[in-house]
């Protein structure tokens, strides 16, 4: 423990900060990508192929499931974050 910098708090802020601050938008991005997977190509498992049509589909069941899970995790993380802040004060 350092009397100038609270290293214990600092590393927590950095680690949780990266997980929440960078991790959640990335998860959101994964969800968007899953959502934009093309409906017909999904059967052969090429969700990651570049989409030529410039819109979000949501027509691919597997992609849709992944997207829903991703967005749900993001929302749950935000909810948990708010809860932990309210309950700690």
């Amino acid at each position: 423990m350092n009397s100038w910098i609270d290293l214990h708090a600092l590393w927590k802020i950095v680690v949780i900060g990266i997980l929440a601050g960078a991790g959640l938008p990335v998860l959101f991005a994964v969800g968007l990508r899953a959502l934009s997977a093309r409906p017909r190509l999904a059967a052969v498992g090429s969700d990651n192929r570049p989409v030529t049509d410039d819109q979000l589909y949501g027509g691919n069941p597997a992609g849709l499931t992944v997207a829903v899970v991703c967005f749900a995790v993001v929302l749950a993380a935000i909810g948990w974050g708010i809860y932990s802040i309210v309950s700690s004060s």
Partner: protein
Amino acid sequence: MNNDFILVLVVITALSFDFTNGFHDTGNAMATSIATGALPPRIAVALSGVLNLVGAFLSFTVAATIASGLVDSSIVTLTVVFAGLVGGILWNLATWYLGIPSSSSHALIGGVIGATLAASGGHAVFWHDLAQKVIIPALLSPIIAGGIAALGTYLVYRTTRSIGKKARSHGFRIGQIGSASMVSLAHGTNDAQKTMGVITLALIAHGTLSSGAKAPYWVIVTCALAISLGTYIGGWRVIRTLGKGLVEIESPQGMAAESSSAATILLASHFGYSLSTTHVATGSILGSGVGRQGAQVRWSVAGRMATAWVITLPASGAVGALAYYATNGIGGSAGVMIIFAVLVAAAVGFYLASRKTKVDHRNVNAEWTGSVAPSETGWAAVAAA
């Protein structure tokens, strides 16, 4: 009786500070959402105002830091608190006029410390705590937030390479509504607390509360309302600098920057650090510019901001000290009243000056031409749109 009158003026001044804090900082939460078109400007500031209000009721760790952590509250008088607030407000108004997103927290802390120094000398200030709880976090927080935002931006762009530009932009604009809301909420948990801390300090100085007491409920409610109202008024000049001046921003960057800001501010609040939401937001926006390949980052604008950050504490401290000498020199309630009148006059002056180069919800997104106030061509573009 006399003292009660001064207390009322001090509380009004504190709430005014909270109000300037709100409009000075609207941009921290909403600048990128407004710049990318995720939210229409006026909806954005309204949403931010409401969430600041909610956030103010969520956590009270930071209020305690300000009330009892930085200066010796047993020798702080009402005049000191008043002079400190005057320093903070004047610095906030000056930087708002120039469109510089400087830290409202540092303006407040600087003002209070300057006034304390003038009143009772260096021994009344907890220097070690000041360094540990304010200065070091101020240096670290923009770097941490910027790093997180840069990492997030880089990964987000990598992840979404395969999505078309229009679809991606659309998706992240929706995401930005969520992330900007979180920053607003975070701002409420952090910044509204600072004024609560100062009013608590004033109540302790007045003798209404005993040393170490927590903020009474009416203080929480009025502070929450003041910051929320200030946020709703919208500091368009600062929003413009943050959203348009610093980095050329797209919605995925906006979401990454806001997520990083929200996470950093909430975590810091949780640990009781009264860090500057402004520093965090600016660091995040810069980071999002670094994280996207080919994004233009205007380092000269960033440099100007950094300079303003460095001089915020001493400058508001100097104004705070001056305000103390003036108030104390005149003496009693007359001193407080006269300086209060000077403050009101200065606020009106800044407002009138700002109207000459007006920035509002209509021209906030005009092309950046190197200054806060959009040039004539900027206005023409707005008129044409």
